[in-house]
């Protein structure tokens, strides 16, 4: 009898342990969904400063929007980037209509401050269900209101534009950089910047895009750094460098596009000058750069092209080509090329500064139709496209 009771107790105990383990196991199994690593989250907008954009990025978006979003937002107060300013500043509180949610220059009489301080006459302290905001955060919000509660995201009515790109559009670099950095002229909506809207391709070797052999580059990441939310960075870590022409595209049109915090689309059209744009929101930013051994300088061209390849024939001796053209050093090459009429086609300059397309050397190197004689280098392999591009860039820069 005693043994039977003992067995029952043992079984009950084991059963209890099993049930407990089951509950825990279910929770652990469910946990396999995993939380985010914050990689793409617009959860932090760099150091908190008393500006609306910073408060939006550091407080409203990551903390408040969980509840205060969409048409069901409590008291109709949406705190997402596209709506928060219009629903906060100068707007009467729904709970206490005699008090403005944000009264510029008067934080003590701003309901937002009262709610986050826990001193409001109605309702619970915000953020509900979370720890109170740190006092430093509250002080920063108060300071923004004291400063007039301006909206720095709408400082300009113009659309967001690209203000700089690294590497420079049209430049030639010797190896693929570790990252591509794009700067905008205002804070960008980090949630709209990803591998769909910030893309990189290379031409496939011939410097021409859209002919079927373009190579899409899959970056290691595309992020908006928390330390600079006016920029986007494409990490190319682990991407092998190939001598080729690369094309950067930032989407300002189509279904997926880059937006500013007000929801305005990128004004991206690029025609050789920055900032980008044509004054109207919407439009892709497209720019190229080249990876190659040769830089767009005469010295680099001399060292990598003229001296090792051309100067064997273009020696500067004799009165007829090829010897009459001296490409043996920088000084001689400049004298022989820049603004000098071609012997074969006297109406065309060998190097027409700022006009690579009209420079005979480029046509000879590319083997364009209409050239006299053979494609250069004579009897050798044509120069690769990045090298030709570098020569063109040097010419287009004025052939300095």
């Amino acid at each position, binding site marked *: 009898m005693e043994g039977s009771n003992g067995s029952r107790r043992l079984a009950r105990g084991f059963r209890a342990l*099993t049930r407990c383990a089951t509950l825990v196991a279910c929770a652990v199994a469910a946990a396999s969904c995993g939380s*985010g*690593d*914050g990689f793409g*989250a617009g959860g932090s907008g760099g150091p908190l400063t008393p500006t609306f954009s910073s408060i939006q990025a550091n407080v409203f978006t990551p903390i408040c929007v969980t*509840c205060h979003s969409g048409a*069901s937002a409590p008291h109709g107060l949406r705190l997402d980037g596209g709506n928060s300013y219009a629903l906060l500043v100068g707007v009467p509180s729904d709970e206490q209509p005699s008090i403005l949610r944000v009264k510029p220059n008067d934080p003590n009489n701003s309901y937002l401050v009262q709610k986050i301080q826990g001193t409001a006459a109605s309702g619970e302290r915000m953020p509900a269900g979370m720890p109170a905001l740190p006092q430093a955060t509250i002080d920063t919000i108060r300071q923004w209101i004291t400063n007039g509660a301006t909206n720095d995201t709408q400082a300009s009515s113009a659309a967001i534009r690209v203000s700089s790109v690294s590497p420079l559009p049209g430049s030639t670099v010797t190896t693929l950089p570790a990252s591509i950095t794009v700067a905008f002229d205002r804070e960008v909506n980090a949630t709209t910047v990803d591998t769909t809207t910030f893309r990189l391709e290379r031409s496939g070797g011939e410097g021409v895009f859209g002919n079927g052999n373009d190579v899409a580059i899959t970056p290691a990441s595309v992020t908006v750094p928390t330390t600079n939310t006016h920029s986007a960075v494409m990490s190319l870590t682990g991407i092998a460098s190939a001598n080729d022409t690369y094309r950067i595209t930032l989407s300002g049109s189509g279904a997926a596009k880059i937006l500013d915090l007000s929801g305005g689309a990128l004004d991206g059209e690029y025609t050789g000058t920055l900032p980008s744009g044509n004054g109207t929101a919407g439009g892709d930013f497209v720019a190229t750069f080249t990876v190659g051994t040769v830089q767009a300088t005469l010295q680099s061209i001399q060292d990598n092209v003229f001296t090792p390849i051309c100067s064997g024939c273009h020696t500067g001796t004799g009165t007829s080509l090829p010897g009459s053209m001296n490409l043996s050093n920088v000084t001689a090459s400049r004298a022989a090329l820049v603004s000098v009429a071609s012997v074969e086609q006297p109406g065309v300059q060998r190097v027409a500064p700022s006009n690579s397309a009209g420079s005979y050397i480029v046509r000879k190197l590319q083997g364009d139709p209409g050239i006299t004689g053979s494609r250069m280098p004579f009897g050798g392999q044509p120069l690769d496209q990045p090298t030709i591009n570098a020569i063109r860039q040097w010419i287009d820069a004025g052939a300095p």
Partner: protein
Amino acid sequence: MRSIDLRISFFASTLLLLGTLTALLMSGRAAAEPYLAVEAGLKCAQCHVNPTGGGKRTAFGELYARNQISAQAVSLEPNSKPWTGDVTKWFATGADIRGGYDSVTVPNQSTESDFALTRATAYLDFIALPNLLQVYFDEKVAPDNVENREAYVLFTPHNGRYVVKAGQMFLPYGLRLQDDDAFVRQASGVSFRTPDDGIELGLELPKWSAQMAVTKGATDNGSDDRLSLSAVYVRPRWRVGASYNKNPDPLGDREMEAVFAGWKTGPIAWLAELDFITDQAPTTSQPSNQIYTSLIEGNWRIHKGHNLKVTYEFMNPFSHVAEDEQERYSAVWEYSPIQFVQSRVGIRRYNGIPNLAASNRNEWFAELHVYF
């Protein structure tokens, strides 16, 4: 002994499999009272004046708390009639008072602890015509100022088969969890914090409970009315339901869909809910946003008066943002020594994005809940 072990092993394996599959399918969150309905195999209307649950308990609800939930039932006076909330034939009352201690630890910040009265609510039920017409009030009386949470006329013709509710009310949507901070409640915006004004029509059949509410929405901005639909099919050991909510708004409409379920496996009552929320942008040049949240909760009735609640919640607040998912784990022990009193001790672990410290906080709390 070997046969017992085999049965236990089979039982545990089945539970583990069911739980794991459910968890993987649903993902989820913690802390709610609908498990009591699942546990009892009853509809919300059985125990609450409000047919969609929460608030004042019916006489049956008071007796169920006394006889089924509490470790021990005590009498107010020898041979006295148990408390049912009915003061007179025409008036009934009740209350919920919650308060206690909580401690929150945010990474790289000092731990903050606090004793507080969380919420005290009083219920007033004026019965104009028994079982047909009543006027119901749910008032938050503390802390701070008095706030009206619900106030409506309740008309229940055909012996409660039909329900008409008009006034300020909580909307029918998903599981009506007690925990307003649960992700499914936060994300949907349907909680005890957000009553709405309008009318609700309900149908209470033996196996079905359904509601349709038309309310003004979060703001009175001239937009179309908000529509809420919810239905649940209730069986003694399981139930399954679905909800839909459409909230038009000039700044962008919101549509929400939820599927939810409850079932029993031995002494464990399970709850699960999965929500899909779409926030439209006001213009086509702006992207819409989808929110996904889910909850799975297990309630193990360890012994009469004791319940262990383990919950897992998941939320993806921005569909177009990578790696911003959040999780919440909860484990709460609930002890009801007598009717009218429940103590709760629990821990919660938030697992969010690393660049927001508060979304990775840990909490523990001890709460005393007095109700009648």
